């Protein structure tokens, strides 16, 4: 699986309700050393309720300038949350086109926790 299999994909909760789109992946570097850095591990998905557009870097709470742009982007992405990878029940398998009319989706596990996505 590669990152673009997940990015932009719609997200459904366990009941099949649409909750948003994957706009970013959070990785942590805590694996065994691999070259100069530790091997990255997928920590979770950032899900934005309304928009697939880019966060332009404004997901970091310290980045607030220029104010109008930051405000517009944050507004567009309000309600964005982080789900841990362990709370993801299923992901679209590349190449599997069950129903071409239906877009592939990430399905979240029942009882998953919405974490604050801000950095």
């Amino acid at each position, binding site marked *: 699986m590669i990152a673009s299999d997940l990015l932009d994909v719609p997200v459904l909760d366990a009941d099949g309700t649409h909750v948003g789109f994957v706009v970013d992946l959070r990785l942590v570097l805590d694996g065994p050393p691999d070259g100069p850095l530790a091997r990255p591990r997928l920590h979770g998905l950032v899900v934005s309720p309304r928009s*697939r557009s880019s966060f332009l870097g404004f997901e970091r709470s310290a980045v607030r300038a220029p104010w109008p742009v930051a405000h517009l982007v944050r507004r567009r992405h309000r309600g964005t949350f982080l789900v841990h990878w362990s709370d993801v029940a299923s992901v679209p398998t590349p190449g599997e086109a069950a129903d071409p009319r239906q877009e592939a989706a990430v399905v979240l596990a029942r009882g998953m926790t919405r974490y604050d996505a801000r950095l």
Partner: protein
Amino acid sequence: MRRHARGALVLAAATALAGTLAGCGPAAHRADARGALESVAEHLDTASSAVATVQLAVDQAVAGRLPAVSADVAASDAAEGATDAVHGLGTIVVPDAAVGGADAPALRDQALAAAGQAADAVAAVRTWLDADGPPDALLAQLDDAAAALDQAHGAVADAAGIPS
């Protein structure tokens, strides 16, 4: 969301295309007589500008201020402009009607004659540059062409009610 983005992109492309077509498309498609006369006036402006350009160029070539090669380029660019005006005037469809008390096709014919005279005068500049004789006859020919264009423009402007 993605569908919206695609729609917006198509819309933008269509607008750009429409804009280009509207900008470059032949003015001949203006159906009404007044619109046609506005086009006639624009072509007359182009021809006048070409004549004014070569008048300046000839003056400065005579005064020894403009190199002959550059004067030649200015003259050939102007000749292109004047010929374009003649072709443009020739392809305008003028409805057979009276506009502002004047006969629209007659106005067009007057404009076409003036533009033709202007194109001839501008073309004569290049011949003069090659031969390098006295400029008096040439300048007189250019003045006559400019006057004819002014007259045609005035008549068209009066009829169509546009500021000249």
